[in-house]
């Protein structure tokens, strides 16, 4: 398995585990931690955890919302405003989580470079 895939899966699993006792920024902690232990290269440093959390948050919010006919999602998509489209809201949710995770991972990578002897 490539490191990218390992990092991707590890980020999701860690994010799920940490979310049990940490608030929303558990995704940042998760991405930071995986960046330390499963270091990636170049753009993948950011994009792998970004996509991992993007997927995780989109799927999770879809699961929560589809059972309730997207009633609230439609309203929140007016509030924000996203044209009332619940899928756009899910995408935005995913991007928000992904962005936070990705940036935290970049920091994790830099940290890992410091720890490692050159």
């Amino acid at each position: 398995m490539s490191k990218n895939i390992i990092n991707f899966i590890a980020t999701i699993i860690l994010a799920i585990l940490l979310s049990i006792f940490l608030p929303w920024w558990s995704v940042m902690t998760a991405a930071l931690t995986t960046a330390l232990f499963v270091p990636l290269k170049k753009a993948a440093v950011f994009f792998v955890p970004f996509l991992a959390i993007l997927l995780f948050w989109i799927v999770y919010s879809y699961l929560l919302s589809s059972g309730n006919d997207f009633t609230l999602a439609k309203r929140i998509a007016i509030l924000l405003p996203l044209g009332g489209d619940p899928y756009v809201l899910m995408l935005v949710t995913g991007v928000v989580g992904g962005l936070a995770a990705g940036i935290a991972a970049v920091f994790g990578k830099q940290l890992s470079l410091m720890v490692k002897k050159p």
Partner: protein
Amino acid sequence: MKYFKLILSFALTIGIFFALNTKFGSIPPIGKFLNPYSGVWQNETDESISGDISISGLKDKVTVHYDAQLIPHVFAQNDYDLHRAQGYITAKHRLWQMEFQTHAAAGRLSEIIGEGALNHDRQERRRGMGFGAEQAIIKMSEDEQTTALVQAYADGVNSYINELDSNNYPVEYKLLDYKPEAWTPKKTALLLMYMTKMLAGGDEDMEYTNALRLFGKERFDLLFPDFFDITEPIIPKETDWSYIDVPQTPAPFSEAVLDSIAETIDKPDPNYGSNNWAVSGKKSYSGHPILANDPHLGLNLPSIWFVMQLSTPNHNAFGATLPGALGVISGFNQHIAWGETNATRDVIDWYKIEFNEDRTKYKFDNQWKDVSVRVEEIKIKGKLSYKDSVLYTHHGPVIYDKNYKSERERAGYAMKWIGHIGGNNQKTFLDLNKSENYDDYVKALTHYTAPAQNFVFASTEGDIALWVQGKLPNKWEGQGKFLMDGSKSENDWQGFIPQPFNAHTKNPERGFVSSANQQPVDEAYPYFVYNDGYETYRNRVINDFFSSKDTFNIQDFKDLHNNNYNLKASELIPYMLETMDISNLTAEENEIYNLAKTWQYNNDMEEIGPSIWNAWWNILYDMVWDEFDVKNTVLNAPFTYQTIYLLKTKGDDAFMDIIETPEIETAKDLFKLSFSKAVKKLNSWKAENGDLNWVKYKGTFAGHLLQALPAFSRFDIPIGGGKNIVNATSENWGPSWRMIVEMTSPPTALGIYPGGQSGNPGSKYYDNFIDDWAAGKYHSLNFLQNDTATNVIIGTQTLTPSN
């Protein structure tokens, strides 16, 4: 380089965390708000209405059945458990609303919204809302039973709050980024103050004072007569008052203080009102009395009402409750039905206060009395607290002084308000829920202070009645119409009308009772009553209807609730069309003129006539009363009824003239001028919006309590009606609860309101009644006679004592 990258990425990480975890203006903290495990996605839930829940403090098991409308039917073994469960269940569905309304009442919105609410909060503090709630708590504590029940309710609410973690806070908490706090009996008192302010928080004293100063007494009396030329009072005219043996307070020689006042605190919407009526068995198709109520309040989401059945082995009540208050407010039990309309009376008076040098004392009967100071600390989200010292006299709070809407160094204006007197209004509702007959109902009412209400009553025994109940000052003739001198004791309220002498009627000859916010009584009533903005149209349509035939059935009641007849327009439009000069009408004007002519005065949805009337009347009204647009002077133009009366009978009065123009206009000229303007307005509206149908032009909406946040509100609700019409649905207020009860044994009832039982915008029960309500439909209220679930029950929750 390495270090630079590290520091940069660290800064970015902190930055993104901060950006997503912080509320910016009205934008919620987006990471907190959107994440799927504790953000709004967690509020995408159906209601949980089954299973067992253990609640501390319960003495016994409580069964809660839900029907398909999500109405909880609560069966408890005793009153304490009943109201503990009421608190718990109400919080479960309406927690955010309960807290928000009481925060608004207490002037605490800045705590959750920020500095933007500071003016609101200062105003409510100065109005003495918290002070009034504290007085109510003192009165309530004189009654052990009420105190214990209000505490049980609070404990029930808190049981629910304690069950919550931040994941399942109502969505508004997440949006505004704050937490619910514990419920207290004071919050129940604040909710009752909220209602008192809404329904008895208005007055015209300052406006009248300015008008008297500007126009003189003779003109004032023409514009603002104590009684109009017609009266159709709540208590029938032929009522014999000879049993009243406590006279009206004799009038001292007192003159109004003719100060000029530039600005006042906000008044509640004067259009809030209500209808209620009951027919006797004799006038009922079935021989059983029938009662109806529809309080006209703001159309909000979550709705002001929450419908419940509240039952113990000793009583069984059903109807509309107010989230935050105990018991059913408008409803029925096995024996009686009751409902309210607002009974306005002048229960706010203003006194000019003269202070000593350092404002520690004020003059009273040639002596100096001590001022007491109440420091109001207003907490502001993200800022330092704001402190406002409000001076209190024996009259009440000095609302306007050099620190607030007035410049006078050593004078101020104090408000005397029934809302500050304190009272155990809660007891009235608790007792009504248990009343079995007329005598019980009358006894329950004796505790009721404010806001004064017209309590309609019907019983399975066959009685109908209506009491105008509130604690009402026994005023001397003319007292409190204008600003009074606060340094003379003769201007103080000298006492109250003894409660048994409050106007009432039981089983009147005509076979029905009704009220629609009109004059409570005619001039024969031996106490000083004058026009407090009384309604003059709905009452006549209702009373005409009940005089039109011998018996009435449920369909008649529904028809009357949904009656769109515009009596007001019918009293002016024909006269205007006839007298106005139509020789030079443009083609556009001609078209509208002809449409107005064919209109039958029904404010039905598809009619264009109501839109024409609305545009025309508003422009005409402002044209007539251009004299009332005076800079730095608060004024209220005369009431609609008197305006129409003057237009028709004194068309050449000097008030008809438009002061800006060199010509002298008469009413006839105003009709034409306003008509031309209205046609222009209507056509430009039409160009923008398509057509002029009333439903569109009116645009009824039910707005979320947070400034009608579009995402949580409903717009363009398909319903007719309008102001001064029995179906009083206007842009944003109207029949907030429609109820019809037939006094069979047990009673058979219908009810509906423009909202839904759930306060969660993510619930299908949030606004699911609105369409049926708009269509004039009703839901059968499933009055369960015992705690056995019937086939109307879709879920049962059992609340069990936890030890």
